[in-house]
């Protein structure tokens, strides 16, 4: 790896980390706490929303599903614009706070709009906009707060905390509904209170990273997009997007598992917990491994773990082995890709455009995931589960081969120029 000017500038930014202390910066832990709290709040809603919509209101979920798809596009646009504003004003914390605030307010919107489909669509829209606003500024703050050789670990710790919140959310919702059966409004109010706590922790304990933009440094929208002209960043973005296109979304992985096992549908809602537990435990250590062994390598290995998930789903193994292996590998995939990708792109992004760069990568992979879901849905309807899986095996193998070849080529170029 080479030391870019951005990396040089980052070095020694955070004074709370000295020498080889190997401690994750306090600001990262603060951001992790905000994410943990916020995810409890949002996953509470995710857990009860389908039930609330159907039993509480009688809304057809087909219509909600369509609305949901439409927002995918809007979120991409919002996140790119928000990232630009965050870079231009150097107020990343403020932009993130608006995002967290919008999502918090949307929790109270749900009981307020009742069964009106337009109202529900608007509330979900506000929540998604909030998520779109906050993600890139938050990741930019993590990267700017962390010394360069700890980036992988910092993102890992953040993702582990984030996932811990996601695991706790449904449990909190379960206990609220147990205490007050059928009282969905209680779930929404508790969710709002927790989201407000997250916002407070952000405002009080997260330090913004505001650098004076040096004269002559361009932070326009065009400059943001011009990041893609830089070889290293472009390569990573293209590769991550390509891999996301041939990666099955969570819903499909669980559906395939259920299809393959064909029995314990009662336990179906618990499948994501298997993935999340492994992800939570491995995120930090795998991030640390990425710092030492190479972030690109770990990122590619993570995608190979996804390929292994497909193979396990196709392999003639006992049901229990399929279940355990598939969920464990799925967790490894997340631990080795989600935060690691952000750590991987950080060195190629100047601090002044850090948020925009991260939003570009995230938007690229989000759009690719959307394409992947639509394609998987079409394939599944057309030829069924096994065929869909086979197509994705071929697709991911080709993508990994391309990425591998590119990596070898890059290394050769680096050696030649040295």
């Amino acid at each position, binding site marked *: 790896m080479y030391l870019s000017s951005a990396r040089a500038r980052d070095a020694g930014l955070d004074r709370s980390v000295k020498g080889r202390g190997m401690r994750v910066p306090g600001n990262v832990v603060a951001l992790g706490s905000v994410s943990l709290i916020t995810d409890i709040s949002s996953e509470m809603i995710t857990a009860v929303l389908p039930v609330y919509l159907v039993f509480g209101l009688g809304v057809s979920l*087909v219509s909600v599903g369509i609305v949901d798809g439409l927002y995918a596009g809007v979120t991409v646009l919002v996140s790119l614009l928000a990232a630009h504003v965050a870079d231009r004003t150097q107020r990343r914390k403020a932009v993130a706070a608006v995002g967290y605030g919008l999502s918090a307010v949307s929790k109270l919107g749900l009981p307020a709009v009742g069964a009106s489909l337009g109202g529900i669509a608007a509330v979900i829209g506000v929540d998604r906009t909030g998520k779109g606003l906050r993600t890139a500024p938050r990741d930019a703050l993590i990267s700017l707060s962390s010394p360069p050789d700890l980036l992988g670990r910092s993102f890992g710790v953040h993702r582990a905390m984030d996932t811990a919140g996601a695991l706790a959310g449904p449990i909190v919702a379960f206990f609220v509904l147990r205490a*007050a059966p059928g009282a969905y409004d*209680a779930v929404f109010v508790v969710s709002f209170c927790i989201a407000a706590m997250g916002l407070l922790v952000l405002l009080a304990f997260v330090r913004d990273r505001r650098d004076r933009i040096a004269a002559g440094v361009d932070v326009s929208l065009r400059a943001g997009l011009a990041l893609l002209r830089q070889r290293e960043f472009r390569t990573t973005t293209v590769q991550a997007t390509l891999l996301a296109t041939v990666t099955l979304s969570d819903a499909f992985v669980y559906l395939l598992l259920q299809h393959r096992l064909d029995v314990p549908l009662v*336990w179906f809602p618990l499948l994501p917990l298997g993935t999340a537990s492994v992800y939570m435990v491995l995120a930090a250590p795998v991030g640390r491994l990425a710092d030492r062994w190479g972030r690109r390598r770990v990122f590619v290995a993570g995608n190979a773990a996804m390929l292994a998930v497909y193979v396990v789903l196709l392999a003639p193994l006992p049901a229990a082995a399929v279940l355990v292996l598939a969920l464990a590998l799925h967790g490894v995939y997340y631990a080795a890709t989600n935060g690691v990708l952000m750590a991987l792109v950080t060195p190629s992004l100047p601090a002044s455009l850090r948020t925009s760069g991260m939003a570009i990568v995230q938007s690229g992979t989000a759009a690719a995931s959307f394409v992947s879901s639509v394609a998987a849905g079409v394939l599944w309807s057309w030829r069924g589960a096994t065929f869909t899986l086979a197509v994705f095996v071929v697709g991911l193998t080709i993508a990994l081969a391309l990425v591998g070849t590119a990596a070898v080529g890059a290394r050769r170029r680096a050696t030649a120029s040295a």
Partner: protein
Amino acid sequence: MTSLHGRLVAVGAALVLLLAVAVGYVVHAAAGGAQPAGHGSGGAGPATAAGDVGAVTSTGPFYAFKSSRLDRDFGRVAVAPASDPTRRVFTRDLRCTRLAMTGGRGLCLQPAPGVTVAIQALVLDGNLAVTHRLTLPGYPSRAKVAPDGRLAAVTTFVSGDSYASLGFSTRTSIIDASTGAVLFDLEKLSVTKDGRPFHASNFNFWGVTFTPDSRHLYATLGSGGRTYLIRADIAARTATVVTSGVECPSLSPDGKLVAFKKKVSDDPVTWRLWILDLATGREHATTETRPIDDQASWLNDRTVMYGLATDDSLSDGGGKAANPSAVDAGASVDTAMWAVAADGTGTPRLVLDHAWSAQLATTS
């Protein structure tokens, strides 16, 4: 910015305040801010003593239903003679969110205890004693027993069984009532539409009704926002699409008419009770103009019975009136059973107050 200590104190105080609001709201809701909680709890007064169910079931036609009066008996199954519906006799401790009773067999759905979303389906004999128990995933939705009592059908709502991001689908299983085993799920049917194979991964089946000979069934097939009425051959596991726009069909005893939910509005979702004549393919409205969400049953070849919420809190706008289907999942809502003529004439009349999921059963 103030000192770290100052911030800690201020944020700590705010967090305690938010926590108090959250806990306070849950406590308020749990204390019956609106309605008694869950089935089988809440309400005032002692539960009614169990009566001699056999005395009612052995003497002639009777109603079997779930009591929905908001008291200690809420959710308990009771029977009443057809000649005197007000004389209700309670079972000892059978509690259901949804009940079916035909041909000397019954089916009772209740939420299963535990951390997963699952139901218990109890197969009952003619005296409402439990003969078999099954655990199935999802929330209780619909139950039906074939006229000869040999087969039963269960529909549950399952979340996460679909690739849509807010996936929520139905699952319908056919049960052999004599053994209590699941024979097959309707998803395994090969469906034809207009003479061609018809299949998609987003197929959902719900609301089964059996033909008088118990060899065929009708059910709703939902796919991509549309609903179809299918007729299936149970032995062959094949089905054909009969028509569209028919939900929760219920076949008349002579097998000629189908009472069904017809969607008349999408926002809020509203259904009305309609009748389809299978011979002519014509459909018409009944004189029941209130929104319904129930799978109807028949009192005779000319009269349909269905449930409606009587709870005021469910009819104060917001589209909630359209959805007492929460009742089938276990929500505490008071309901009543009504009947109306199938030919589109007459006016609806009250059959059973404080009752849900009622069927007129005959002595086996």
